[in-house]
């Protein structure tokens, strides 16, 4: 084999390898996300965030608009502070409500943003004023049982 045949084979090999990398990045990993784009960070405080994790999606009307950047605990108010990184392509009004939701019965938890009607918008560093905490299944069940017991005091012996 002479030099140019080596070059051809190696060139094809490298091109094939880069194609495979592109396939992984585009088709498997979805590089077209907005992680690379500009974004702003807002803060939301919850009484209880349940099992939410860092990097959980932030959705509005079911569409992913950002990710949870960090979760920490405010040492004075004992509230969970979630910092949400929202893509600059989306603006949310000041009275947006942030709710912790679960996709499906056992699915991952995410934050849902419901925009309000005020014409001022949340900017970098703002805090979402209205939040709704995660549903904790155990609390729901115990609440349900207590209510049941309170409703029918005469029937239990």
């Amino acid at each position, binding site marked *: 084999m002479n030099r140019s045949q080596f*070059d051809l084979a190696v060139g094809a090999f490298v091109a094939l390898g880069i194609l495979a990398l592109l396939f992984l990045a585009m*088709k498997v*990993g979805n590089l077209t996300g907005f992680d690379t784009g500009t974004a702003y960070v807002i803060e939301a405080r919850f009484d209880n965030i349940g099992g939410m994790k860092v990097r959980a999606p932030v959705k509005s009307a079911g569409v992913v608009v950002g990710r949870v950047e960090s979760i920490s605990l405010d040492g004075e108010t004992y509230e969970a502070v979630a910092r949400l990184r929202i893509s600059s392509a989306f603006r949310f009004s000041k009275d947006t409500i942030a709710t912790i939701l679960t996709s499906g019965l056992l699915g991952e938890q995410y934050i849902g943003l419901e925009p309000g009607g005020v014409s001022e918008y949340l900017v970098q560093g703002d805090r979402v004023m209205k939040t709704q905490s995660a549903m904790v299944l155990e609390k729901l069940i115990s609440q349900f049982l207590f209510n049941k017991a309170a409703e029918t005091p005469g029937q239990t012996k």
Partner: protein
Amino acid sequence: MNVNPLSLFTALGHALTSRLERLGLAARFALSVLRVLGVVFLRFGLIIRELYFSGVRSLSIVIVSGLFVGMVLAVQGYEVLQRYGSTEALGVIVALSLVRELGPVVTALLFAGRASSAVTAEIGLMRATDQLAAMDMMAVDPLARVIAPRFMAAVFSVPLLAALFSAAGVGGAWIIGVKLIGIDDGAFWSQMQASVDVRIDIVNGILKSVVFGIAVGLISVFEGYFAAPTAEGVSTATTRTVVTSSLTVLLLDLVLTVMMFRGLN
């Protein structure tokens, strides 16, 4: 038979010091290869030739293995997932295991068996037939002329081959999952794209395979360069390359995995 109890400690001590000595030799050898690495880029044709023998000739085995591994993962993954009624997650499972672990690791193991062993045997035979000494006599540095191009070829080839392995594996899983079993095509890809992160999963996987390429390439040229100049020496060196490379890759994989993925959630 009366064994002197002290000889046990002598054997232990010798085993330890000889291994440490070899490790030190390898480290010094790696440094001297690094020193001549820049020269190699001036004569890129040398690397092209080695890329052909190490990389291009490994293409078929890597792609076919990737295809089969992806297919097996799809069959086994489907078997478990269908119990929980979430067969659409098949794409996620296959893609994550390939990109994070199997792609880099299995490719490095295959490369050690297919290409590194050949490199060791080639260099070992050069040593045995005094070709390396002859180069030295002609004021040609064998490290720059023989060792460095082969090392660089491994460093370039392994990540590219690992990417091809993963891509072929995802393709294999798609054939089994979507074409034969009948999982929804859209769900297969969209769940995969939602869960595979480019930086955390794909870039880390590539980083892993770069490290494996450096390790496997270095071991193969080291074992060849210091092979005993006999027929038996060359065969021992070839075996050692495959064994040491495989163990090193698996150990490095554990270390890298802990470093890369432990902090997540």
